[in-house]
């Protein structure tokens, strides 16, 4: 394994307080990431201090996900929070620089919580296929 990766379960209600502790210890906010897991969204907040990797994780419903902003602690979080809002429809309360859905110019609203469209091009034939 290249590195140990610590994943800690947190509650949305304690996210801001826990994030503040990370800042006070000197951690850098690496990223905020959302993953769709069926009807739920998995939210990951990743931090790093001298290559020590710590990740906060919690779940939210796919429709109506709502989280508090951490941009008051790490101002740079505004980019990630606008991203998860535009691509996944996560409502972020208190974003320091809220683009209100215009951070990405997408053809459809919240594209990353939509089911993948079926491939329009048929799979290439394999040797032996008729």
């Amino acid at each position, binding site marked *: 394994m*290249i590195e140990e990766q610590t994943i800690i379960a947190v509650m949305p209600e304690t996210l801001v307080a826990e994030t503040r502790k990370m800042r006070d210890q*000197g951690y850098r906010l*690496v990223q905020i990431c959302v*993953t769709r897991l069926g009807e739920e969204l998995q939210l990951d907040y990743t931090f790093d201090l001298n290559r020590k990797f710590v990740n906060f994780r919690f779940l939210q419903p796919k429709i109506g996900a709502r989280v508090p902003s951490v941009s008051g602690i790490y101002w*740079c979080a*505004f980019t990630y929070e606008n991203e998860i809002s535009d691509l996944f429809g996560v409502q972020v309360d208190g974003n320091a620089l809220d683009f209100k859905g*215009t*951070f990405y110019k*997408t053809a459809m609203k919240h594209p990353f919580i939509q089911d993948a469209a079926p491939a329009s091009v048929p799979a290439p034939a394999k040797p032996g296929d008729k």
Partner: protein
Amino acid sequence: MGTRTIIPFGPQHPVLPEPIHIDLVVEDEKVVEAVPSIGFIHRGLEKLVEKKDYIEYVYVAERICGICSFIHGQTYCQGIEEIMKIEIPTRAKYLRTIWGELSRIHSHLLWAGLMADAFGFESLFMHTWRVREQVLDLIEATTGGRVIFGSCKVGGARRDIPPEQMAWLLKELEVIEKEMRLIVDIFMNDNSVKHRLCGVGVISREDAILLGAVGPTLRGSGVADDMRLLKYAAFGELDFEPISKTDGDSYSRCAVRCSELFQSVDLIRQAAAKMPAGEIAVKVTGNPDGEFFSRVEQPRGEVVYYIKGNGTKNLTRFRARTPTFANVPPLVKMLAGCELADVPVLVLTIDPCISCTER
């Protein structure tokens, strides 16, 4: 307080090869606030992972960006290999290291040329890009591609560098190194260059960390952090210390990149000397089931891939946090308070790659 005016910078601008837009709020000639706007060419490549086989997806990952394409492919393969617990051959690790460092040299030279162009030093721009072509020749000779290498795959490498070709590569690198010394001498010592860079766009060490800066933008502010210290690929067997500068200004960020040119040459020499003979790939069977955050140092800084597999050939999630995306907030911070004429230079000191950002 003077009259405030908003000047739109981009998305099309002579210093920007790719579209990014910044609303500059200015009072006379001083920028008091900058509001970035991206997303003009967002491609949704992360979503494509739901339709592509995880083995095929390395081709998509490589096409996230045309400058650090190889390292994108490497980061992806490394993540899949971690999930599937695949131990790749040692020779493949060294090959990845050599191609990664060649990518860094050509990326930094590309940036240096654009930077010279931004502050109006056209002959330096042309000289820099002439040398970059020589690096691309090395990449083409060893991989078959100048932009997309296609030499990394899950399980190892697709191509080898035979000993005689390695000897030729090292000889050519000597010539390139001499040429780079001439260029770097101008970048570091020319009065007109220093006048445009010294004391401009200062980011303190504390701000760099709080703003999530990565790569030369972070190291230019005195934080000696570099993901190569994680010892991925062959870095655990090479002598490597991150390069950092403490002034936090545009000159420091340039100095970090200039020094890294020679560091990469040294790393390639070390890797070539230590690379063992043997296989370059292992057979991969099965599908990834698990998750991993794959972190690699690209020329512009740390790239983070989150990869989550579900035991099928399609991944559940692929997410790329690219270095330029992380360096947008530091850019906004350094623009506030600068002179309007310094904006193009400051934008280029983070070495923006919008193609990466709009993955």
